[in-house]
């Protein structure tokens, strides 16, 4: 590269803009005739010559992507189904199309997806053959017939049952048996307390009696306390109505608190009695040789 080449490079912008004086233009032409390098420079500057050889453009893009954002194929795979279905916005579709045009793998994938999109719905229906309908009708008809037959057999059995002369006696027997089982066994009531089961019965009765007495006592106390409070309230109402309103409010709060206390007391008592009954049952069963635990 000599001084004439440098002069040519300095004047290149003016040459391209066609703003060079005629003398300088002639000198530049003479230099171009002699210098191959400056001729190529002019061709590149005027767009007549590509700087990159054919095919090197793609590899350059890949190289750039590799050093910057990475390959776009993975991101294309995330959106390619929407692209094939036409669900992407126009700008997104355009960007994706540009990648697919220049990427062989993604282009193949897109083509197969397009073909599958058309081919898969055609796989929904497969002809099972001419004999299939007959078989289905036969099995469904058979199923319907067997359902009717079962129902008819059930009604026939019931009809025959209720027409029997002894049906009333049998029904009365079944009902009596049910009532005895549901309400208690009279034979058990007459058992002596010498048997272990009889002992359980006696102890259970004791627990029940004491529980009933305690509950009755608590309830009576609560009732009398409520009655006294009501009497006091009625006296106050007679004296001063305004004061009575405040008293009624306080009484209501006290009553509410008392009821809550009683409820928790009742439940504690019931839990305690239940545990005692279960313990007695366990002890009695143990004496009979049965190790059973209740919770």
């Amino acid at each position, binding site marked *: 590269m000599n001084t004439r080449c440098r002069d040519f490079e300095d004047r290149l912008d003016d040459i391209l803009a066609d703003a060079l004086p005629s003398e300088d233009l002639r000198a530049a032409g003479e230099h171009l005739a002699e210098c191959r390098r400056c001729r190529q420079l002019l061709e590149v500057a005027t767009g007549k010559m590509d700087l990159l050889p054919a095919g090197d453009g793609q590899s350059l893009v890949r190289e750039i992507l590799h050093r910057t954002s990475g390959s776009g194929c993975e991101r294309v*795979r*995330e959106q*390619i*189904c*929407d692209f094939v279905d036409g669900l992407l916005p126009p700008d997104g579709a355009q960007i994706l199309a540009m990648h697919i045009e220049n990427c062989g793998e993604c*282009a*193949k*994938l897109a*083509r*197969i*997806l397009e*073909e*599958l*999109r058309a*081919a*898969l*719905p*055609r*796989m*929904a*229906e*497969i*002809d*099972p*053959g001419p004999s*299939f*309908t007959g*078989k*289905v*009708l036969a*099995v*469904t*008809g058979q*199923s*319907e017939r067997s359902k009717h037959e079962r129902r008819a057999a059930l009604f026939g059995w019931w009809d025959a049952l209720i027409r029997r002369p002894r049906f009333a006696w049998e029904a009365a027997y079944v009902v009596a048996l049910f009532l005895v089982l549901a309400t208690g066994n009279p034979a058990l009531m007459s058992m002596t307390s010498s048997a272990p089961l009889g002992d359980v019965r006696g102890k259970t009765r004791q627990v029940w009696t004491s529980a009933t007495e305690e509950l009755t006592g608590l309830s009576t106390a609560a009732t009398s306390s409520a009655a006294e409070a009501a009497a006091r309230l009625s006296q106050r109402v007679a004296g001063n109505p305004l004061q009575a309103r405040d008293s009624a409010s306080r009484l209501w709060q006290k009553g509410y608190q008392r009821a809550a206390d009683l409820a928790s007391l009742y439940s504690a008592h019931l839990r305690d009695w239940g545990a005692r009954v279960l313990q007695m049952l366990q002890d009695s069963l143990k004496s009979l040789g049965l190790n059973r635990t209740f919770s």
Partner: protein
Amino acid sequence: MDLAMLLVRCKTGDELAWEALVRQFQARVFGIAFHYAGNAEDARDLAQEIFIRIYKHLDLCGDERMFVPWMIRISRNACIDHLRRKKARPIPSDVAVEEMIHLQAAGPNPEEHWMADSRKRLIHLAFRKLTALNREVILLREILGLPLEEIASMLEIPLGTVKSRINRARIELAERVRALAADAGEPAPLGRP
């Protein structure tokens, strides 16, 4: 024939209407059974079982718009029950299915005729090679065309998961088709450059 009218008549016990309903939907039910079972013999028994279930529970089906999703749901349940039962017995491997399909391609039966189309056979083979879940989402969405909401409800998974799962399954299927086509020596099995 009008599906609404057909359903009303079927529910009143009209046997001819039932026959018409069977004829109208037998190809679709058989298709579902075939894609789940993987072979025509099991699919035929399965399709009959599905129709018995439909027949027994037809009163539970709503109006005609609900019929197809309801029918697909019943078919799917019957197929899953069938596959569970089959688990106790040896399951045919993918290779066996492949061989069977090749054998079927020479036969005269309708489903064999269907499989005789090499492109469909290729897709079916690729479809059979998918994982069970991917196969099911492809069947429900791409083959049967169920709405995403219906599939989400059927598979009991969130809607967004269904969508991403379908996309992944489609790509997997496309890649399997391409691989099978390359193995079979078909230069451009589905793609037409």
